[in-house]
């Protein structure tokens, strides 16, 4: 695992190459009109996200359902067009590309999906699914393509017998490996994994994570690991960004986030994700449910659930500010948060 951790700004200065750069990315979805007299509602799915991921780095993107993490992944992959803001992959601005250019760019960034069964066409054999990727991009002769597919499968630990199988004949763990092999066929530089293990059983999860770890090192991939499971992120990522209702609330390098989290939401997430022990006795609990992203609360978006919320939090939206080397937090009360919330030994 690459352990070199460099702050965002210093990364650019020291000549480190940023592989993925997001600048103030916004994605709204307009809902269908329900009334003549009101403008149609919009879901504020991603609301002003800026991030840099250096080449070879692994960013963990953590958030609960509705936080916008999957939407963000799709914006990066140009599967969704951002409402505003720019996405740069390997120096190329991919935000407003033509169809053809987009297809070429997609070779640099690939994705692994959450539900491996849903991500494969049930009517195509695994071999057909994979070979067609190469055919579509005009790679190699027929024989070469066959070889590359079988090579890719062996890289993820599957033999050639899988080529003639249908997805329905494979287990979730096997298919997820096929999904990874398929994503690697085009030699991408960036791999986005959208909850790659959350549909899998505990005993299969580790195998997929090991595999991702290995290929990342072997192929010097830049990765974005999306998950709601902090343990997974802790294992793979070297930087972690926490999302809540479309915004990034905290970014830090891994160790800093897991030992010195300063946003009340991050602290609550960490408390909830305690690996074992008395989980229901965790001291820090985010009250209630995440609010709807259609009408996000005014002020700080977390204020409705935050144990520390003040009037200021309810009125003024805090900015994402740098609080330490490579550590940014979006909270008015970040300085006191740890002290107030983590007095207990059960807290992280």
């Amino acid at each position, binding site marked *: 695992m690459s352990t070199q951790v460099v702050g965002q700004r210093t990364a650019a200065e020291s000549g480190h190459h940023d592989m993925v750069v997001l600048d103030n990315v916004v994605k709204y979805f307009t809902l269908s009109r329900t009334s003549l007299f009101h403008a149609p509602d919009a879901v504020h799915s991603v609301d002003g996200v800026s991030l840099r991921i250096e080449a070879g780095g692994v960013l963990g993107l953590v958030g*609960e359902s509705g936080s916008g993490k999957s939407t963000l992944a799709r914006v990066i992959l140009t599967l969704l067009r951002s409402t505003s803001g720019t996405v740069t992959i390997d120096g190329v601005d991919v935000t407003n590309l033509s169809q053809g250019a987009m297809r070429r760019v997609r070779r640099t960034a690939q994705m692994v999906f959450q539900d491996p069964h849903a991500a494969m066409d049930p009517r195509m054999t695994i071999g057909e699914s994979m070979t067609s990727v190469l055919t579509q991009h005009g790679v190699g002769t027929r024989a070469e393509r066959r070889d590359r597919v079988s090579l890719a499968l062996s890289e993820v630990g599957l033999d050639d017998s899988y080529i003639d199988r249908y997805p329905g004949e494979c287990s979730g763990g096997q298919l997820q490996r096929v999904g990874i092999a398929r994503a690697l066929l085009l030699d991408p530089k960036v791999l986005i994994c959208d909850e790659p293990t959350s549909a899998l*059983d505990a005993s299969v999860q580790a195998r997929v994570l090991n595999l991702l770890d290995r290929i990342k090192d072997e192929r010097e991939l830049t990765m974005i690991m999306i998950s709601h499971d902090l343990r997974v992120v802790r294992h793979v990522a070297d930087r972690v960004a926490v999302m809540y209702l479309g915004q990034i609330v905290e970014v830090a390098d891994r160790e800093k986030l897991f030992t010195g989290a300063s946003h009340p939401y991050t602290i609550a997430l960490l408390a909830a994700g305690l690996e074992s022990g008395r989980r*229901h006795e965790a001291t820090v609990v985010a009250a209630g449910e995440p609010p709807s992203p259609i009408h996000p609360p005014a002020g700080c978006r977390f204020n409705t659930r935050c144990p520390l919320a003040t009037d200021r939090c309810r009125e003024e939206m805090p900015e994402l500010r740098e609080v330490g080397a490579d550590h940014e937090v979006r909270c008015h009360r970040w300085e006191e948060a740890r002290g107030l919330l983590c007095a207990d030994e059960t807290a992280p």
Partner: protein
Amino acid sequence: MPDQLEIDNLTVSFGAEGAPPVLDGVSLGVAKGEVLAIVGESGSGKSMTAMSVMKLLPRGARMKAGGIRFDGVDILGADERTMNRIRGDRVSMLFQQPKRMLDPTATVGRQVAEPLRRYAGLSRHKAADRVIELLSDVGIAEPERRAKAYAHQLSGGIAQRVMIAMALAGEPELLIADEPTTALDVTVEVQVLRLIATKRAELGMSVLFISHDLGVVSSLADRIAVMYAGRIVEVGTTDQILRQPQHPYTRSLIKCATLARELDGSLFVIPGDVSSARSITKGCRFMPRCPVVEEAHLHDSCDAEEPPLSGCANGQVSRCWATIETRRSA
């Protein structure tokens, strides 16, 4: 004192006669006031166990057992009327996907009121008041508004709270919770687990808690039963299971759940896969994936005969030849 719920040698199978059963000779007991957790991966048969107790197995299931008894009442032989009475009054159930467990065309209030009117005999008006009480009791803000809502208007967390309100309305003696937090966000999961723990203490009920997640279970359970491929492989107190697991599968499962690292920095992995385990009729079902079978030089006995569930003095039982061997030599 006999256990409040006793399951004796329960076998459930589907499809053709002679197909490998999904549950194979499961025996369990839940003492009064106790939380027993059943842990296992998908397909291990843990949900089938729950549904057998409720006698709500899916179509085509064939159930055989030495007996299932709840508080002395024979469930196995009970007729539908008795079962309805038990389900309505004394045993309640929570499910994995709370939103899908609510009738999409009926309001929350109407559904919560139903058992009240039926089993507590409340009038329409009294029941409506009680619904509001119950909803606010499980921590639902604005219960009046929620009572008028439909399932699709609720978040998963709220829906599960509604299910809990409904399940606890009749103050049941046993709560069966089938992965009640699996579909929920982690911050909400904590809230729901807390709620269940509080309510259990309040009502003094027993709980049969089913989960694939050792982390969730360890926070709540008094005892844990581990299932693998339709079989119980280990039962013990939560401390015993987490601190001195005896069955190699339990040990592997704990390592997987905590994402334990091997010496080379990679994560611990159980070799092989579970898909064929059920069709193993001779010998230990976990043997093809077992990490100790080689080092313990037990290959022959593991291959030849399935180990029995055998225990030591402290009540912990497991199904493994290696453990039996060590115990014998000790």
